């Protein structure tokens, strides 16, 4: 029994894999993710971590956990399937964009240039996985009472946190309501800003069941490469030919 337990925390190994990957030439890296749904307990910690990391406003979400009920009472089950952007190797969303505001990087991550996106939302319609959301400019603090002259109230609450967008893609974005990313299509970007500084994506580090494995899928020594080779592996909507970089284990 004890031999079945991993010798080290998968996070430690993934961290080591990441360090090794970052030493390679950028074009030689191919980011990939494997999600073991047998290990996912549906805690939604990855969703929350992603929302916090990217300071996502209401209605914008990069990583949801799908919940399905199967079976018939009394033999019922609940299956959880975390769904980030699948970073397809044949992405329908990038082909749809009329102004090349979204594309696949050489490392395989599908990203959005917020300053180029015109907000037509065709990519949202084209994505088979509903992995893109549009930022309609909503605020969590919109219903907070306004108390003029006080240190607290709507404006103070907003200024304390959500008025200042996260540094997605390693860039400083203007104060919320003053341009992009409000009005843009938004999506998971594999936390490229974290990877750049040697940190794993927020969803990966927050997964308490270690169900999310991330790394360079072109590195035979990496955990993610090993997992992709598992006979349990499958991808969502394989018939569409999108060839996702996010794999699942049954």
């Amino acid at each position: 029994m004890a031999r079945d337990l991993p010798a080290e925390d998968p996070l430690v190994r993934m961290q080591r894999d990441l360090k090794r990957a970052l030493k390679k030439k950028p074009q030689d890296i191919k980011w990939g993710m494997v999600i073991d749904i047998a290990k996912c307990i549906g805690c939604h910690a990855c969703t929350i971590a992603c929302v916090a990391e990217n300071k996502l406003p209401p209605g914008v979400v990069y990583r949801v956990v799908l919940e399905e009920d199967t079976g018939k009472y009394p033999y019922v089950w609940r299956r959880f399937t975390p769904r980030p952007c699948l970073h397809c190797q044949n992405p329908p969303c990038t082909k749809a964009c009329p102004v090349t505001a979204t594309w696949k990087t050489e490392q395989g991550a599908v990203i959005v240039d917020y300053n180029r996106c015109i907000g037509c939302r065709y990519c949202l319609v084209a994505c088979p996985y509903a992995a893109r959301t549009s930022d309609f400019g909503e605020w969590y603090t919109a219903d907070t009472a306004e108390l003029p002259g006080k240190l607290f109230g709507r404006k103070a609450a907003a200024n304390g946190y959500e008025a200042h967008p996260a540094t997605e893609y390693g860039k400083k974005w203007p104060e919320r309501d003053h341009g992009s990313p409000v009005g843009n299509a938004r999506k998971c970007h594999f936390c490229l800003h974290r990877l750049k500084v040697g940190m794993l994506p927020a969803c990966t580090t927050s997964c308490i069941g270690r169900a999310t494995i991330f790394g360079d899928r072109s590195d035979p020594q990496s955990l993610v490469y090993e997992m992709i080779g598992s006979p349990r592996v499958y991808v969502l909507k394989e018939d569409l030919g999108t060839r996702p970089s996010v794999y699942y284990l049954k």
Partner: protein
Amino acid sequence: MFWNNIMKNRWEKKLIILAIIGLVVGSWGMFQRLAYGHLGMNYGSFVPWGLWVAFDLFFLGLTAGAFLITILTYVFRIKLLANLGPLAAFTVLVTLLCEVIIISLDLGHPLRVYRFLITPNVGSMLFWLVVFIISMWLIYAPWFYFLIREHLIAWGNDATRPGHKVYRFLALCKTAYTFQDRQRDHRRTRFLSYLSLPIGVIFFGAHGAIFAILHNRPLWNSAMLPLIFIMAALLSGGALITFLAYLYQPDDKLIHPLGHVVLLILLTFLFLEALQIFVGYQSKITGIVTSLDLITVGPYWWAFWVVHLVIGSAIPAFLLIRYPDNSKMVATACFLIIVTFLAVRLNYLIPDLAVYKLEGLQNTFFHRRLRPEYVPNLNEWLVSVWVISLGLLTFLLGTRWLPVIQAGRGEEEHV
């Protein structure tokens, strides 16, 4: 004829007042859109396209009137319909104007449209749609101009006519219109008409293609959809031009053949639509059947059965079959087709978007923007009212102040 003119003037004034009221009322929605962006609208990330995109398709369909006239005139040689050329071309310009405004309002960053020029994605159908919208402008704006130029010059020379200096300016200060000028303008309009035929087919087909190429949208993903969109455009555009012909050039010789054509297109469109529904249901693919159920037995079943099929199809078909020689009945049938056509556009657009594309998505992350239920809210309707009113006002004032009707008379001789 006399009675018709009196009626026309009376209705024109009423319609102008109605359009101004529409602009005033709709300005609240415009204020909401311009001041707060998309915050006050009901569409979300699962149904990212709503009422405005449906109106965009509606307006673009209405542009097909001129295309139909061109086909009938130059392909089927019904020369009499050439009289409607300037009216049809002007209608195209007004409906394209409405389309451009409403789709710009639907964009998250409308001021970035220049991106189509500097970072185009030639692999995107949406890019090509924009190319063809611009092509339509480039064809129909000069077409319209060359058709009315003779009258512009004449009006500019008429010192007793109010605003004759404006007409002189519009005629580019030209004071004489020679036989050679007339021949040259006719050559130009004929060339643009021929050019509009392939461009028009691709333009109307490209609308359908935007939806049809998406293999994740089972209801849309069909080679038949572009054809259906071409027929839908011809139907709504043909009905509009017939109705306008009745209002502005109430000549039975014009209206009756148009009525026959509209009936033929209506029946063809219904046949294609029935085929799509039949094939969809027979495929038994969950995504398609769920979308079709939303159309036929969903909460808005009445939009399909009552608005589209009864008021917008069965009654017009009955009128067009029973009273083919009664211009008033033909115009009534066409009016019913136009006013109900938004239901057709909404029924193509929303049902596929309103079905979850992944199992389990409905049980996660609750937010009103992440739900498949979509009903346009007051702001969306008000913006639509504003755009329609602007189009109506432009059309009414344009037909008053420009030689739109006068220029058409005698045009068949030159075809």
